[in-house]
């Protein structure tokens, strides 16, 4: 063991690293929001659709839940150009993460839909609500409280998953760590700093989500 840790050489890169953290946060939040939209549509289809609608949605969810995100993005990035769809790395990662998050969020939101009482839906139908009104005015407010803890967990997981973007050359937190590693060769130092940044980042996100859940929806469950 002829190696001494020298953190001094990499501390100068800290602002650069935090810029990467900001990009990670954006990527995580954006893919989470798109995933939410996909999940909402899918969960609505699974709950209210007929068998013809449910089957493809179900297949989508099962497929994306049981295959690794990395290989999904590899497929999007390398195989889709063969059919003429050429994406840059950021787009490929964003699409892959959104679809993956969409599958998880479908499951979570479907569980939320099932927590609705039948009588409430019947009341809304009696009032002549259409499907959109039913979802927007009756179901969503009710399930916010039930759904907030699992959705927060999923967001934190999504935030950590963004590190996969580094493999495709997106310069987010881990991607910038690769860059700094290539410039300084202080590998363990910079990767442990990055690990610390991830821990602090997700802890801040957990704390904020806990406070928001407490104030808005009176959720007392621990977040991640």
């Amino acid at each position, binding site marked *: 063991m002829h190696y001494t840790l020298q953190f001094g050489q990499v501390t100068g890169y800290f602002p650069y690293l935090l810029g990467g953290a900001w990009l990670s946060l954006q990527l995580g939040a954006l893919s989470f929001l798109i995933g939410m939209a996909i999940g909402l549509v899918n969960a609505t289809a699974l709950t209210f659709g007929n068998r013809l609608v449910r089957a493809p949605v179900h297949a989508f969810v099962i497929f994306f839940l*049981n295959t*690794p995100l990395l290989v*999904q993005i*590899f497929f999007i990035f390398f195989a889709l150009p063969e059919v003429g769809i050429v994406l840059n790395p950021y787009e490929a990662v964003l699409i892959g993460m959104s679809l993956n998050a969409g599958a998880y969020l479908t499951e979570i939101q479907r569980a939320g839909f099932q927590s609705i009482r039948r009588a409430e839906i019947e009341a809304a139908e009696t009032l002549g609500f259409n499907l959109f009104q039913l979802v927007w005015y009756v179901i969503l407010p009710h399930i916010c409280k039930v759904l907030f803890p699992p959705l927060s967990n999923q967001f934190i997981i999504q935030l950590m998953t963004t590190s*996969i973007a580094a493999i495709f050359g997106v310069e987010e937190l881990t991607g910038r760590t690769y860059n700094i590693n290539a410039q300084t060769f202080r590998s*363990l130092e910079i990767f442990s700093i990055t*690990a610390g940044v991830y*821990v602090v980042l997700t802890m801040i996100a957990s704390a904020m989500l806990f406070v928001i859940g407490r104030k808005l929806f009176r959720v007392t469950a621990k977040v991640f």
Partner: protein
Amino acid sequence: MWQSIIDEAPRFFGYYNLIFIGEALLHTLALSFVGAFVGFACGVVLAVLRHERLFALPPFNWLAIAYVEVFRRIPFLVKLMCAFFAYQLLGFKVTMFVVAVTTVILSAAAFSAEIARAGLESVHRNQWDAAEAMNFTPLQTLLLVIMPQAWRVVLPPSFSYTIGFIKSTSIASQIGVLELTYAAKVLNTKGFSAFLCFGTILVLYFLICYPTKLLGEHLERRLAPARRR
């Protein structure tokens, strides 16, 4: 495009490629299941260490809590790189497979500790009190009273986490462990259609993960915790 894939398929599924993919499949299975089992054992130890009614010795329970909180919050890729460079720094000459197994164990231990903790907490406190009243030692309480009741709560979620570890092992391709994702990359580099390479690998991952998930769901229905205290 379909035509070219159909033309290429017999060559892709040739003897040597199948051997190559089979070897990669074995590595993926070994990596994820060894990692999950050893990690689960470590996770149970961590959960026991931090539980206030068992071995709550101050430095150890704090360390267990810190470990769980920190290692759950580091992405697998970053953990992998840290393990990779840490082995290098400590001067061990190990294969990449060992580095990857270490990483899976590190993250499996952190996640399983949470499942095991939920299992320990699912046992009603009267049971703990009764064991204490009968003058059981903490070890006896754990082995004779708590574990026989907790395992049915712990087992089903640990299957869904195992799927997570199987999926995480795809990231181990980044340090050059010969597992499914790496095999796909190698075959793709050799000139086979990416559609075929990554499509095959996706199907293989699905064939590993989906039965595991079904087994977990089956156990969850079978082992639904009895409503007794």
